[in-house]
């Protein structure tokens, strides 16, 4: 048995998305910008996909700009709002300390170029309140960018409340919905979202494609110059098979969202329940307001990379926020923002489920993780000190 439990990293394509993508590659090779009938057929399919994506988030088709994925969409949204703000002398941006790096690193660059960034702290469950946003908004604030749901700990933010505050104060609100799209209902009108990013491969669509929703009237800044594709705001021949595959995947998710959520959430809760019995462990993220498939826990006295490589040896694909897996010297900025000490954050494990996981697979994870944790604690000098009382248990 090999259990894929890393669906927040990426997902397997759904049969519907795969069929649509392959069919588009085989049969619809025209360039949507061409005037001949093969090209126009491609253009029609492109617009049909745009309409599907727009309808799925309650937007207008002309408000959808296809991109290479979530990172590009985040970059374009933030740079656009920042430059619009600058024209009005507004160079203050509000975000949270737990955003994806596609947001944080973009803001870091703006900070170097003169913008002022406010990083709102989160509470112990990774939540931001609309009140925090309201209190942080200033006369010169040009953008609030807050994620819909966190990629590591799954915490879902009060997006509609934040949207209402931003609208009331006349500040643009960008929402990185990469982890939420296809899994949670999104309504850009009701939630008063001005810009929203999503990526197909997080909801069983193909990799390399995503979109940026931009409310009508907001002027986008181009990241890629060239042809007139995407209303002149994103040059380059459209990745039509990917876009068609994304629309098929999204449609499939929307049609089954209620049953998928109920099913995945049940598996998630069983998994949390099953792993919570491990001594000196703690769940990261909000206990209820979390993505249906997200489980993220810290285990004291062990290091996450060795945990996840042992799980891989035992047929489980997971991820960790340890420094060794983050590619930097520090463990996950999200876990640190929750107040987890470095040594605890190093011992984190993220298991993210989808509707393709089964109860048997969850049972396999529940049977395996405690054994691996016990083994690694058995060879850990840190665990020995914790057990002897030479170091205090933190969790």
């Amino acid at each position: 048995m090999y259990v894929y439990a890393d669906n927040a990293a990426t997902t397997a394509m759904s049969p519907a998305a795969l069929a649509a993508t392959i069919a588009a590659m085989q049969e619809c090779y025209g360039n949507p910008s061409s005037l001949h009938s093969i090209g126009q057929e491609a253009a029609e399919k492109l617009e049909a996909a745009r309409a599907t994506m727009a309808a799925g988030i309650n937007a207008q088709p002309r408000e959808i700009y296809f991109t290479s994925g979530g990172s590009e969409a985040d970059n374009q949204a933030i740079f656009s709002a920042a430059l619009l703000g600058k024209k009005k002398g507004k160079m203050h941006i509000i975000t949270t300390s737990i955003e994806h790096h596609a947001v944080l690193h973009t803001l870091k660059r703006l900070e170097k170029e003169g913008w002022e960034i406010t990083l709102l702290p989160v509470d112990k469950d990774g939540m931001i309140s609309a009140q925090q946003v309201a209190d942080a908004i200033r006369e010169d604030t040009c953008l609030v960018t807050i994620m819909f749901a966190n990629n590591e700990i799954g915490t879902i933010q009060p997006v509609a409340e934040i949207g209402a505050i931003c609208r009331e104060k006349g500040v643009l609100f960008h929402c990185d919905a990469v982890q939420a799209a296809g899994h949670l209902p999104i309504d850009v009108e009701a939630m008063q979202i001005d810009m929203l990013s999503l990526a197909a491969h997080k909801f069983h669509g193909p990799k390399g494609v995503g979109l940026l929703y931009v409310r009508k009237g907001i002027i986008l800044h181009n990241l890629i110059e060239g042809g007139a594709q995407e209303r002149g705001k994103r040059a380059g021949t459209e990745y039509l098979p990917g876009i068609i595959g994304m629309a098929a995947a999204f449609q499939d998710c929307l049609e089954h969202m209620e049953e998928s959520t109920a099913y995945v959430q049940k598996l998630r809760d069983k998994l949390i329940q099953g792993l919570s019995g491990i001594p000196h462990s703690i769940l990261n993220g909000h206990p209820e307001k979390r993505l249906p498939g997200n489980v993220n826990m810290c285990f004291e006295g062990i290091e996450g990379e060795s945990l996840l490589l042992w799980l891989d040896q035992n047929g489980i694909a997971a991820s960790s926020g340890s420094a060794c897996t983050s590619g930097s010297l520090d463990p996950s900025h999200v876990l640190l923002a929750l107040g987890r000490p470095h040594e605890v954050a190093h011992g984190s494990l993220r298991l993210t489920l989808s509707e393709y996981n089964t109860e048997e697979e969850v049972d396999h994870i529940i049977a395996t993780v405690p054994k691996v944790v016990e083994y690694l604690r058995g060879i850990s000098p840190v665990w020995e000190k914790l057990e002897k009382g030479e170091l205090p248990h933190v969790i």
Partner: protein
Amino acid sequence: MLYSDKVMDHFTNPRNVGKMDDADGVGEVGNAKCGDIMRIFIKVEDDIITDVKFNTFGCASAIATSSMATEMIKGKSIKEALELSNKAVVEALDGLPTNKIHCSVLAEEAVRAAVKDYYDRNGIEYGDELKSCPGHCESCESCAGH
């Protein structure tokens, strides 16, 4: 694959893992905050390391380098053990990713720390090179002061 077969072998089937109650020297290096702690126990008879054990908190390469380092000094003289370099450990493992080289440095330092402890316990004089951390650990925040 991120790691060589040798690294995966020493990670999943570590040699000399365990503790030693009657060790003649124990060396511990690293820092939990950085995510790596290695502890090496040595048993010494007539200047020969007759037995060695390790405990490690850390990533796969930290465990694999501990395992390989213990294997490389077992049965060797103290002098030979002190000559063990992190490069030799890396080579014996068929390489490590660049960002994991510090694990091999930690293994080298753990061996030296165990020998230093053995010298201290037995009142054996040693040079300055064993007295302080050699300062390879610039990758470790808490050691940045060296």
